């Protein structure tokens, strides 16, 4: 199969063409012994600990953007969902829905990108599926990834574990992915010095787990979530609502890159509600917070990690933002699509 070729309906119909596509593009890119068997189901040895299991569909447009592409996003997204359960990723499945006529060269590139992300996260893509649909039935390419992971802690992570006084830690700058996508879409003609932060974060979470073990025990790690659609505000608002506790964060502590800030000021967006694909919110017991921040800062994607606030018994169920001027306001979940405004 040459690069000048395009994906045909025949590639999805299970015969020789299909087999050729799978071997030439997918097995070639994802290269691992389990996948190479091309069984209908991948046989895996069970882990010792509990299993985490998650799935995500990726329909991003455009397929490529500064800092990433749908391939990288598909892997990172699922690895990160597993990571929020403190689960080491063990295996991924990737199902592709490809529009007839999609250039093979592009498919190869996107698979190579997915493979790079998977290698970085130390997880093989062991099984998958391919369907080809008629022109215009898919926006080029949709990818669904499913992941299974081994939970490395023995306690329950989640909103019910969060306590009054816990530290709220953010792993880095917010808004980069959303602005990179906006710029790539070209709907509002600007160029911004922004790259998507799309990245697999198991390494970052593993470092945090190691840090709490050394600073008071695993249970000091209360809660993990990645602020994807709806941004940081949504993660915090949901946590406050679910836990019945209050949260207070310092606006000045939340890192926002100058370019993201400028785009937000120009178009009227709030960076706190913008999507991220390579950031983590960690809620940690106060005695372990410094150790966690230090450990995360040493990881590739956590260099700007910092404490941004705390959990409180005051104003239960609500999130307060303290402005640089000492005044406070409520953070509420954003509604509906992201819309620029002139007013």
């Amino acid at each position, binding site marked *: 199969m040459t690069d000048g070729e395009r994906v045909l309906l025949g590639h999805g119909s299970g015969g020789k063409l299909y087999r050729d596509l799978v071997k030439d593009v997918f097995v070639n890119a994802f290269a691992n012994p389990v996948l190479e068997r091309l069984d209908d189901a991948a046989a895996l040895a069970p882990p010792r600990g509990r299993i985490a299991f998650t799935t995500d569909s990726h329909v991003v447009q455009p397929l490529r953007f500064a800092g990433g592409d749908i391939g990288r996003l598909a892997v990172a997204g699922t690895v990160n969902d597993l990571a929020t359960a403190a689960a080491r990723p063990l295996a991924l499945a990737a199902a592709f829905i490809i529009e007839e006529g999609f250039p093979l060269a592009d498919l190869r590139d996107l698979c190579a990108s997915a493979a790079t992300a998977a290698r970085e996260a130390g997880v093989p893509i062991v099984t998958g599926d391919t369907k080809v649909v008629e022109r215009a039935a898919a926006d080029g390419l949709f990818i669904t990834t499913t992941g299974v992971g081994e939970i490395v802690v023995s306690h329950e992570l989640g909103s019910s574990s969060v306590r009054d006084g816990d530290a709220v830690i953010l792993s880095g700058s917010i808004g980069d992915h959303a602005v990179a996508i906006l710029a790539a879409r070209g709907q509002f*003609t*600007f*160029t*911004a*010095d*922004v790259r998507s932060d799309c990245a697999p974060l198991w390494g970052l979470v593993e470092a945090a787990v190691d840090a709490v073990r050394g600073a008071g025990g695993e249970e000091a790690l209360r809660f993990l979530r990645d602020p994807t659609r709806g941004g940081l505000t949504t993660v915090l608002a949901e946590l406050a609502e679910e836990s019945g506790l209050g949260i207070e964060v310092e*606006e*000045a*502590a*939340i*890192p*926002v*890159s*100058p*370019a*993201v*800030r*400028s*785009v937000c*000021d*120009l*178009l*009227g967006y709030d960076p706190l509600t913008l999507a991220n694909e390579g950031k983590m919110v960690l809620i940690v017991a106060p005695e372990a917070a410094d150790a966690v921040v230090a450990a995360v800062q040493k990881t590739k994607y956590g260099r700007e990690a*910092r404490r941004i606030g705390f959990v409180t018994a005051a104003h239960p169920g609500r999130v307060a933002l303290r*402005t*640089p001027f000492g005044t406070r306001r409520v953070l509420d979940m954003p509604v509906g699509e992201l819309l620029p*405004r*002139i*007013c």
Partner: protein
Amino acid sequence: MCLALPMRITAVDGALATIATAGLEQRASLMLVPEAKVGDYVLVHAGFAISVLDEAEANETLELLREISAFAADDGVEADDAG
């Protein structure tokens, strides 16, 4: 009323200007401020420059806007300027 951001003109092509601020570049029409020239700071609303700002005055607004940026506050490093 209305969102408007101070930005610096880096190039002019007829009635269209290339304008920039920290990390962001865009085009805006100069039809409402025909006297504006390269190097001027202008207030930009909905794709149009509506006023020419004095440089010192523009910097005052930009400073006020950057007050909230963690980059300026935490690291003590000036956020990358439109220069």
